[in-house]
């Protein structure tokens, strides 16, 4: 498809497990963003890539969170030793350039039990 694709759509993890969430941005989009959305809240910024360079990771809540985009296209958000407070929808967005018209994927709903 032509949109941002995220997988898996749903993920249930036991507390302490590691998880990896994948984002396939729109082809040719330079900028890629990860957001975390708790139930009933707006998305909150986690990290930003321009091509393969991670230019801002100020929103990552702890050192258990790690993101990469090694070839400037697909990105992976990894969460180590998951905790219950990590339960949320993780959204990926991409744009041709920076913040302008960022297009979001459907998100991955992570539930830590």
């Amino acid at each position: 498809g032509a949109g941002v694709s995220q997988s898996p759509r749903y993920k249930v993890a036991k507390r302490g497990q590691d998880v990896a969430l994948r984002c396939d941005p729109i082809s040719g989009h330079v900028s890629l963003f990860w957001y975390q959305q708790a139930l009933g809240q707006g998305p909150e910024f986690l990290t930003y890539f321009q091509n393969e360079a991670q230019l801002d990771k100020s929103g990552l809540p702890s050192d258990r969170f790690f993101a990469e985009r090694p070839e400037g296209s697909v990105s992976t958000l990894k969460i180590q030793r998951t905790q219950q407070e990590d339960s949320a929808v993780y959204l990926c967005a991409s744009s041709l350039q920076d913040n302008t018209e960022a297009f979001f994927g459907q998100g991955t709903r992570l539930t830590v039990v």
Partner: protein
Amino acid sequence: GESVGLHLPTLSVQEGDNSIINCAYSNSASDYFIWYKQESGKGPQFIIDIRSNMDKRQGQRVTVLLNKTVKHLSLQIAATQPGDSAVYFCAESASLSGNTPLVFGKGTRLSVIA
């Protein structure tokens, strides 16, 4: 399906009426503003954006108004349709640069009564 925004401010409008969704922002340095629509179980969908050097911008059935004096943003939807039912978020940024990430508001749930 899953719900987005269980305890959000809610606006109920009759089908065919105009809707106005409001958003207050706090950062006087904000330069770029976007409205997103989020349906249950889906990611936010871009609706319309506006730069701080403008006070009004129109799209198809939507208009965004920006009042920098009182730091207020509004989204007007003309002839509201049942398909407009969703949670609407405003987002702001100090610049177009991705280095100044979008900050989202809490959202407003729009319910359209057929």
